[in-house]
């Protein structure tokens, strides 16, 4: 992407506004282009609803699964990218899309660190724990609650069994990739008296670390430091042939 940022401007839309901007940068910085910083860490923001099988109505802010997966594939393949920071501020969304993203992140060889800012609710939980190291901001929250069914629900035992199965997929993933136990996660999920209109638990910052869901409380500095540590380890493992 940066490769295109050379003295010769891309031949495309030369509009007057861009001409003016060029002159501005010459005047302000004495150069023809604003310096772009080469970065070996890419950042993947997961915001709003995670959108999967259905396109959600436009009032929803969404992160689309079909955008995220190819980006993760590209990051895994690009030798210039050495680490990935996943920033979460999501209200959950499609179970399958969320689990798909989480599975890809878990199976990446590049170091990954996730940072929950604001909120990482419901299906955001498996995505947060899928990174090699997970962080949560002190004020960020994570809501853990049971899965609900929408649309036509048939009142038969099979409906319950199906829902239980879907829930187990999430619980199993979270249990496998964090320090929390199956029983503790279920306990949080089915807690009563915590949420106003639902059963479940809200974990604020440190609570998520204490139950073993997230590795540490922290912000961007801790996240980048951890990534750099991982990148160094990775390089040592490979015999330090880069740089």
């Amino acid at each position, binding site marked *: *992407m*940066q490769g*295109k*940022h050379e003295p010769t401007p*891309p031949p*495309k*839309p030369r*509009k007057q*506004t*861009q001409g003016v*901007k060029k002159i501005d*940068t010459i005047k302000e910085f004495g150069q023809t282009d*604003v310096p*772009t*910083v*080469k*970065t070996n*860490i*890419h*950042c*993947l923001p997961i915001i709003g*609803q995670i959108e*999967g*099988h*259905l396109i*959600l*109505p*436009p*009032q*929803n802010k969404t992160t689309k699964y079909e*955008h995220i997966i190819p*980006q993760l594939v590209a*990051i895994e393949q690009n030798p210039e990218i050495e680490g*990935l920071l996943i920033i979460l501020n999501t*209200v*959950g*969304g*499609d*179970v*399958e899309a*969320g689990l798909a993203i989480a599975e890809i992140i878990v199976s990446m060889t590049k170091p990954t660190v996730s940072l929950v800012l604001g909120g990482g*609710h*419901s*299906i955001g939980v498996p995505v947060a724990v899928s990174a090699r190291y997970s962080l949560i901001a002190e004020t960020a929250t994570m*809501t853990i*609650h049971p*899965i*609900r*069914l*929408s649309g036509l629900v048939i009142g038969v035992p099979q409906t319950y069994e199906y829902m239980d199965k*879907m829930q187990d997929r*999430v619980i199993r993933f979270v249990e496998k990739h964090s320090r929390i136990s199956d029983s503790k996660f279920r306990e949080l999920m089915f807690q009563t008296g915590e*949420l106003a*209109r*639902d059963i*479940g638990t809200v974990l604020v910052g440190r609570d998520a670390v204490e139950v073993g869901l997230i590795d540490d409380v922290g912000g961007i500095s801790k996240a980048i430091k951890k990534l750099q540590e991982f990148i160094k380890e990775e390089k040592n493992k490979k015999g330090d042939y880069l740089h």
Partner: protein
Amino acid sequence: MILYTPLPLELVLMSDDNSSPYQEVEYNGVTLVVQPMGIGLGKIVQVKSTDPSVYLRPELQPGQQISLSPKH
């Protein structure tokens, strides 16, 4: 499809108008969400990239107008 979200489902799924005012375009190799402003013009609403340096490029700042000719 199962939606796993703490938001009330009626809030997520409710809609009077299903058409989004935004359009997604590829511009100089970067995926952008733009609001069409007229023939061949669009205002940048969102940048979709994992490369943090893309967000520093002045021509890709949200609010900037870009031309939407289909060459790219």
